[in-house]
């Protein structure tokens, strides 16, 4: 089922045109990767989707409703966001942070309803953060923090969860943990995950569909096996890579090649 449609989306920071007409379709329960070199407009695209930036032109349609006609709370009930910079200055508890995910459902003065609490408990269970509930967000490890922020997005009970490089700060073990969690939300909870990523191998392993961006437009879209091709990557990133097949997982494997002449 198609859940979100982006047509000719444009955005400029002042005179600098960052998005130059992006077209994308998203379906329910699919894990999408958005890839592309630095500055290609990936993060700007996400900011337009969750409403932090207003598109200069083009449309974003969520289940037949143009996002422009939704109020912020309505939009937040449809799209959740897991930020990249997870620095939270104050010592909120994990529970408090996750409970913020319920904000789009009640007014400023309401206390949490029993339904809210249910959703929060469910989010904690799904992300294995229940045991952290009373800990301060600032006491957590990188992986735990990321799980908490994913739990908040899950508590938001939206069909779509956006993630901005959720594992770029994590070690390899926690990268796998978070990517597993994200993929399971798509597979088991029918969430549409839209994940901006840098690591081509993680993209190969976890995503079901890739949008490859360059200079503010989508240059390629398709399943990872089609997109992760040495020629395409050379075109888009300008890097020489060797693309093989991972014998364990069967997914593509991308190995960057050094520009030094066999110096090691």
């Amino acid at each position, binding site marked *: 089922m198609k859940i979100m449609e982006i047509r000719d989306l444009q955005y400029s*920071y002042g005179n600098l045109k960052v998005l130059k007409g992006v077209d994308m379709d998203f379906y329910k329960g699919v894990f999408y990767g958005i890839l592309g070199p630095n500055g290609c407009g990936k993060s700007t695209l996400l900011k337009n989707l969750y409403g932090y930036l207003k598109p200069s032109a083009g449309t974003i349609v969520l289940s037949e409703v143009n996002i422009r006609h939704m109020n*912020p709370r309505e939009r937040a009930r449809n799209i959740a966001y897991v930020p990249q910079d997870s620095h939270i200055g*104050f*010592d909120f508890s994990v529970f408090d942070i996750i409970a*913020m995910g319920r904000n789009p459902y009640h007014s400023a003065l309401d206390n949490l309803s029993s339904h809210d609490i249910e959703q929060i408990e469910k989010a904690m269970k799904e992300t294995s953060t229940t045991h952290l509930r009373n800990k301060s967000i600032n006491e957590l490890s990188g992986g735990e923090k990321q799980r908490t922020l994913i739990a908040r997005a899950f508590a938001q009970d939206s069909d779509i969860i956006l993630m901005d490089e959720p594992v770029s700060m994590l070690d390899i073990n926690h990268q796998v943990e978070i990517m597993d969690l994200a993929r399971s939300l798509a597979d088991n909870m029918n969430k549409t995950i839209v994940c901006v990523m840098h690591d081509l191998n993680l993209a190969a392993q976890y995503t079901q569909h890739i949008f490859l961006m360059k200079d503010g437009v989508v240059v390629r879209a398709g399943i990872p096996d089609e997109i992760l091709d040495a020629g395409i990557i050379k075109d888009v990133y300008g890097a020489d890579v060797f693309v093989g097949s991972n014998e364990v997982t069967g997914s593509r494997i991308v190995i960057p090649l050094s520009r030094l002449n066999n110096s090691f």
Partner: protein
Amino acid sequence: MRKRADVWIYIALVASLLAAIIFSAGRGSADIGFIDSMKIILSRIPLIGKYVDIRNLPETYSTIIFSIRLPRILTSILCGTGLSICGVLFQGMFRNPMADPYILGISSGAVLGAAIAFVTGTQAALFNFSLVPIFAFIGAIIATAVVYMIAQKKGNLSTNILILSGIAIGFLCSSLLSLIIIASREQAQRIIFWTMGSMTGSSWNTVLVMLPFILIGSLVLLFNAGNLNILSTGDETAVSLGINASALKKLLLLVASLVTAISVCFCGTIGFVGLIIPHAVRFITGPDHKRLMPISALTGAIFLLLCDTAARTLFAPQEIPIGVITSLLGVPFFISLLIRTKRRSII
């Protein structure tokens, strides 16, 4: 569980505030004493009043308490409440533990505005309403806007630049103020009073003018405590959780500038209250603004009342400007905060 503990905190704070009021009402050149002072105040409270016998106390005591001390006490309470909640707001909204109306240059902007109204003669009543508070408000708004614009970068606020630009704007306003003081010798005294802070000018009139502003300001901020929690985790997050962050920030800044301006108008610049109180309270309550806001308001009221009582009684009959006392307490606190932040960032 937390809720039940909070009830006791509120009971303790309200009791302390009442005790502080009675204590302060008794202190001064005419030393009335706690019990007598309590009797005199109770005697004017409807329903209870008729059971309190104050016939054996001098008539003048009653006059001193009701005409002189009580208005001043209430002014201190309103001012302490206002500055504290503004401090809570600025620290939460700017995600900066060192923000307060004084450090952000907003108080100085308000004084400058007030002084301009004062010396240019615009203090002449317009529709029976002094222009001084309006100019103070405009000064506060301009200072807030300038500091905010300097610190803003692509929709994000740089916290260091925020503090530095606040200090710079504060200096600029102080310099302009010095010029005004030099240029207008006759009114210099009144302006200097503003720069150091004092409750000397307070009357029942002061209380009546301040009350609605502080009350409505407090209610708006209190109403937004939940939103402020989310805002304090970052603008982008707030937007993704369905909050119109830029509109909310503008509203809250407007309210805080108004509360700051009205406090400055009647009490002058009183530094560090908005810094110390939210911090000390956050130690106990944690960062939840739904608790932090009301508890800071009460604590700030008690704190400033005690500071003012000290200001008028420590070296009586000579008064110490209250700003001097709060700065003496606040600066060591501020420095210890800087050192703690420094350690944190090194680790």
